[in-house]
């Protein structure tokens, strides 16, 4: 049986590719693409080096800081230990100097005994004129206040120690 054949589809032929040529003006001194790529690589490398150096620097700085902190802590510890030692020695000296201990040692260890009676030899007082005009008896400590004379010697090595 004669059939009615379908009309074959017409497939359009592909057009030949036409490569577009882009032309532009080249400025004087402009790098070629290759040179540009090389430059970019150099820049990237440089940035990497700077970054690495920076990081290294940060780490180094941190290490130095940590070492400094450690040294500072050690110094603080040493100062505290020395201060504690000083305080203990100060206490020890004060205890050794206490009149009660001295008397105890004198009597118990050295066998000393208090005299039954004490006789003092006293010179006659010398009258001196004071600023107010009234007379009074001169004494060894008239012009010297015990605190003002002996204190600086004691306090000098205490000052700022705490």
């Amino acid at each position: 049986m004669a059939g009615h054949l379908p009309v074959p589809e017409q497939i359009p032929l592909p057009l030949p590719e036409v490569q577009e040529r882009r032309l532009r003006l080249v400025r004087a001194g402009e790098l070629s693409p290759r040179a540009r790529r090389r430059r970019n690589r150099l820049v990237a490398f440089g940035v990497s080096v700077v970054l690495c150096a920076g990081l290294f620097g940060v780490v180094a700085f941190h290490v130095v800081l940590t070492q400094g902190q450690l040294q500072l802590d050690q110094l603080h510890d040493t100062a505290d230990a020395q201060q504690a030692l000083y305080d203990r020695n100060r206490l020890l000296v004060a205890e050794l100097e206490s009149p009660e201990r001295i008397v105890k040692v004198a009597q118990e260890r050295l066998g000393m005994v208090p005299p039954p009676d004490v006789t003092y030899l006293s010179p006659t007082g010398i009258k001196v004129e004071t600023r107010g005009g009234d007379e009074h008896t001169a004494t060894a400590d008239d012009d010297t206040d015990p605190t003002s004379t002996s204190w600086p010697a004691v306090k000098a090595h205490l000052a700022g120690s705490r």
Partner: protein
Amino acid sequence: MAPRSRTRRPQPQVRRRTPDVRRRLVALLAVLGVLFTVVVGRLVMIQGVSPDKYVAVGESQRLRDVVLPAGRGAMFDRNGRDLALTIPQKTVWANPHLVTDPLAAAKALSPVLHVDEAVLGDRLSRDAGFVYLARKVDDKVVAQVEKLHLSGVFFLDEPKRFNPAGDLAGPLLGVVGTDNEGLSGLELQFEKKLKGTPGELRVERDPYGNEIASGDRSFTPAQPGDDLVLTIDRSLQYETEKALSEEIVKSNSKGGTAIVMDPKTGEILSMANLTYDGADSGKAPYPSINNTAVTSVYEPGSVNKVITIAAALEEGLVAPDTTLAVPDHLRVADHVFSDHDPHPLKQWTVTDIMATSSNIGTIMIGKQLGKTRLDAYLRKFGLGSKTGLGFPGEPRGLLLDPKKWSGTSIGTVPIGQGLAVTALQMLDAYNTVANGGVLVTPKLVKATVDGEGTQAPTPASPRRRVVSEKTADQVKHMLTEVVKVGTGTEAAIDGYTVAGKTGTARKPYKGGYKQGAYLATFAGFVPAENPRLSAIVVLDEPAQMYGGLVSAPVFAKVAQYGLRLFRIPPPRPQSTPADTKITDPDAAKTADVAPPSTASTATTARPTTTSTPPR
């Protein structure tokens, strides 16, 4: 051949799945949307609404605040010798969470720390991160604990207060609590100056507790407390306590008080307070709990006569050589007062009255003065008000308003009964005489020293005139007669002129007086010509009740030591003014050693409510 249809048969599965997937996607989107909203909401809450709370939580995990305790200021004597100082000591603590075997640890620690094993076991078993095991232990204990190598047991530094001279001046210096807060004495009075300001160290730590070197760090240094330079002299303080202690034992007193001062400056050079439990206790006198020299009042007795006579002299009612006919007893209202010893009517000068400590003579002078003027002078001499020392617990003393005086008050008050004073108040009155009539406020602190060592002297003590210089000189001469030939001869010091007055007063007890209980006093100063030292000695219930017998010798011992210590030479010998010479020295000497049995109200015609005031 049938042409192939290009349309496919509908596939029911695909048709059913498409809308379902869409619904699920929408649902999933909705759920994600809700979750996202929740997360965003939470973020807003955390970051926007209440960020502080979470910042604080974060900081608490990273940051650690360390309180730096301020060093408590030391106390020095006037020559810079340590009287009280603070030294760091180790405190043993534990973290029970890190203690592997609490009972074994408690067993090992108990004999070292001297803490009960059960108590330690309880502490080490608690659900806590920190418990104290023993506070402020010495280095030997620390070494022993370290040897045990116990897990979870650590040490920390805590300051501890020490008094290197032991109990010396203990009641005066006071005590501090476990946390070094002043509880009594100067420690309490100068708490603000001594304690300083704690500092703070804030550091950032890693999860292992190590400090992060470049982390947050802030440091506020502790401000140490000021040191106090006291007016006390350690050596004189020791001698004062020693002399007082010896006399307390010798006289079998219940205790005693002694104060030594520089009358010119008001500086207290020593202040001793001792208690004695009697010979049977087997213990030596020990420091009283309170600084009774400043905090306890007592009836002064005859030492108060100085004020009565000074007031009469100042008012021009009498002169040192004014003669009065003095009987041995006198009725005042419904009470008969008597002198210590019976005697015929005597023509005594005012100086005689002072030297013999005549009650009747003094009452006669007091009556001339009148209650208003007498009360005014008592107050001018500093009685009835605080001394200005500022010591904790210092009372004003007791002075009755003249409007409330009874009929017999004009008999009792002039001779030192019916009023109460502190030992320091009475010594101030004697200092006023020593200073030519000027009262100088007492002081205990000579200077303060800050953490840099800068010394700031305390201002000079305020002073005010009470009586004229002439009156003071007249009283001074009378007081020298008391020591030369009167009731206070035991206070004499070879080479020096001592001025002073004895006093023997009954102890008040339940509205009356305690039978046989007396307070014996001696107050005076030396050298009389130019007083450099003044002192008062009070003995509580001595077996021999007279101030002239028990307190005066202590005065002499202490004053003699003080004269050597401060290198005070004796003055050039001076003659005693003729107008103040005693006219009846024999009577005074006899009165000084009269037996106590003569002190009675036997001469009174009818029973009285109070007994005869003793000397």
